[in-house]
């Protein structure tokens, strides 16, 4: 049995809109092993993005426990500042996040973006160019984000994430705004690299084909429907 990278127990999160309490995630429990991939599916508004935010500490849960790489984060416990700092450290060095778009700093070139991310994570920025080459956009290194296509920008985003040598990648519909062909290419690269560097991957997606590429499937829509 692979060592557990992430264990989630009894995780709950609700939002308050107006005077109504909207439960988004209720008593969610699952584990993810090192290098494993998990697809997060569910209809729109089912809480995929919210869960990803919880898993990297950008939101805090109402109840439950998250154990990430042996660090235990318990909901509601005191020491919020220490928790925030611990999450920030994890995000800087261990957890790579890819959004549907706007993953790059617009004022930096693709190469500078990768370097920036690598250096923040404390990795050697000298490899940055290699990462761009590995993602097939080596010749675009000196371009700015607005000078390349959407698919190329997502490749650059992946280059940034891999350059930090993460333990876990959280991808929120990373190909959501790409055409099918490009989406398929980008997904292929993502899976390849994830397998090669053995990092965990949680992928929120509407795309059944994409979800099928993952080892596990978590259907939030189904869960909340039950």
């Amino acid at each position, binding site marked *: 049995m692979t060592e557990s990278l992430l264990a989630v127990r009894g995780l709950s999160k609700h939002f308050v809109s107006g005077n109504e309490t909207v439960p988004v995630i209720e008593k969610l429990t699952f584990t993810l092993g090192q290098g494993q991939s998990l697809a997060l599916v569910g209809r729109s508004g089912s809480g995929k993005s919210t869960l990803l935010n919880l898993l990297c500490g950008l939101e805090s849960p109402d109840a439950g426990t998250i154990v990430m790489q042996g660090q235990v984060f318990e909901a509601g416990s005191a020491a919020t500042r220490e928790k925030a*700092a611990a999450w920030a450290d994890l995000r800087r*060095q261990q957890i790579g996040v890819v*959004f549907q*778009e706007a993953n790059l*700093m617009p004022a930096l070139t693709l190469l*500078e973006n990768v*370097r920036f*991310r690598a250096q923040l994570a404390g990795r050697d920025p000298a490899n940055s160019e290699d990462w761009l080459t590995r993602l097939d956009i080596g010749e675009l290194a000196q371009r700015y*984000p*607005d000078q390349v296509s959407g698919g190329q920008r997502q490749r650059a985003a992946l280059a940034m994430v891999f350059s930090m040598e993460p333990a876990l990648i959280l991808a929120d519909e990373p190909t959501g705004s790409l055409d099918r062909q490009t989406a398929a290419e980008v997904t292929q690269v993502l899976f390849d690299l994830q397998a090669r560097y053995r990092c965990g991957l949680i992928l929120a997606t509407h795309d059944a084909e994409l979800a099928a590429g993952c080892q596990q499937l978590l259907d939030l829509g189904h869960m909340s429907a039950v």
Partner: protein
Amino acid sequence: MKVLMSLLPSLPALPIPRALLSHYRRHPLQLLALATMIVLATMLWTGVNHLTSQARASLDQSEQAVAERQQVVRDDGQALMVEDFVSLRLVGVCVMPWLEVTPASGNRIIGIDPLAAHCFGAGAARGGDQPLDGKPFVDMSTAASAGEAHLYLLTPDSTQDSDLPAAYHLKTFATGPETGELGDSFLLNLEALGVLVLLITALLLRSVYLLGLAQRRDSFALLHRFGVSPGQVQRWLVLEIIALALICVVPGVGLGRWLAAGLGGGFGQALDGLFDIPLYAGQGQGWITPVLVMLTVVVIACLGDLLLLRFRERLSLSVPNQGRLATALFLAGLVMAWLAPSLPWVFVAVALVFAGAAWLTPTAVTGFANWRAGQSKAPLARWRYRELAVLARRLTLPLVALQFALAMVLAIQALVTTFEDTFDRWLGQRLEAAYYIEVPAGADSRKAVDWLTGHQASNPGMQWHQVIRGSTRMADKAAASRQQVDVYALAPISTLITGWGLLEAEDHPWETLAGNKGVMINEQLARRQTLGAGDTLQLVLDGQTRDMRILGVYPDYGRPVGEVLMNAEALPENFIARSESFSITPGELGITSVTDGLKRLWGVETLSMRDNSTIRELATGVFDQTFALTRAMTVLTLILAASALLMMGWVFFTTRAWYFRLLVVWGMSQRQVAGQLLRLALALTGGIALLALPLGIWLTWVLVHRINPLAFGWSLPMAVYPTFWLELGALSLAIGVSIAALMRRQLGKPSVARVSASALTGGER
């Protein structure tokens, strides 16, 4: 704004305006921002303009009130009576009775006859058409009943000695010194300030308007897709801005007048308490001019480039990067300001320099930031410099407006402080003693000299000197051009004048002058004849050319006539004095003892006397208030520019917040990100303050060393005030801190949306 919103539903079913305005229905704040900016800009400029015209009118009045006039006096030196008035009027001489009454308690009252004043013509007959209900000026009869009165008969400047019947002659009637060109010069500079304020407000308006346009880009694109031509959209936009301007300019002008009145009200009261003449001209300009000017400015600021650029180009906010053209304009302006032969050229030069600066500033900041980004090894620093470049480019207009406002405040501060200082020294020079007493016609001044010398021995605090004024000619080496110069002769050379600051001087100039071993000349004469201390001046006295050593040059603050200051002992016996007087600071003796003594000595009932301290108080009061108001208005401009930058920074940041949030996603703490924000904002406003500094100093130099000499033929000393620079720098940093604080609040919101459409194309850079 409310009015406009309520108009929306009732608009006829015109699809284009409905579509255009529907944007504002969804984003009423944007309309509010634009409307507020128009109102504030109008208010500010109207305020400045109103104050300038008030200051001009006030100074004109004060000058008129204390200006030299002509009066008719009797040859025998006796007091004038009503019979004199009648006989003069009978022979057709225009005279206005001026009755000065000093009641036992309270201020001097002046009685004039408005009917008799008509022959003076509109300008001089102040009070001619107005009812005389003001305190100091009352009707003759009222004045006569108030106490012991002294009658003067004033006559227009056009009256000649030959017009008068025998037994009368003309004499100057001075109630005070003329503020003359010092005041005019200050007003010219105030007007330059008004133009600058207009420019700054136009920039601010433009920035807010363009921001609104950028936010409506999507609506325009949609309309375009629906087959509406850009031309049609343009026409509706023109109508829209004209309508908005009409709605906002009028209340803005009202507010500006209210502001000026509020600031100026205290001014008027202060003046009323100071002197017995209503000096504060409450009336400024009317409504029409400011409304028209501001309408034009709004339309030009918002749509000025409509005809020049194609619609789509105009929608992209970036300023064309024509660095070379900008540099050329800038340098041409600098050179032109330096060499300009006349005022209009200087103004063109200033316009060129400011236009060039407006263009170069963002380019310079961007260039510097990108250069630093290239230099820096730390990724965070590199990122920060790149963001700085983006900020500088996107906030170009409000930044330039802030730069101009800072430069203006700096220049105005230097100018006002210099004026204050100069004015003090100028007053000190003109009003050297506490009292000024004229020697009556036919009286022997030598008796007074003996009397005063005698009394001074027992009154150490007493200071006095005799002043003889007249004129003579200079014997030029080129004999053809014989120059008339004023003679200002003093004896003895008392401590009343030895404190004067001299522009240049030999060693111990006052002692040498007291020993009658030379003369001093004023700045005007020195400039005209290119003379200086140590040179020799040739004067024609008593028909003979005399060589006189120039001991020093004294500043004259705008006196247009060459003047020679000499020891009265050097004057020949037959020198024709235009006027003879004594300047006296009586000390413990008291002025009444002095006047009584002199009256007895000269056998006259009244003395023509000027109370210099009252005049000094009055003049200082008028100027102090004008200075204070000028400062207040420039500071308001600065505040407006700062708030515009704050607002634009905030709006811009909503489109940028996502990327700052990204830093948090990448593992930086909120605090660290806030720190980066702060450094960014401080770099931006600090950089602008740094760039404003040379512009401000240059502007001061232009005002002091170019505009003033070209307009008036003399120049103020140019002073710089580094402590004030530091204050301005601190202020700019405070603006930066506020921007960062505002942005941080946005950053603190739990979910920051990737709002801007530009995120889809990789974000703006």
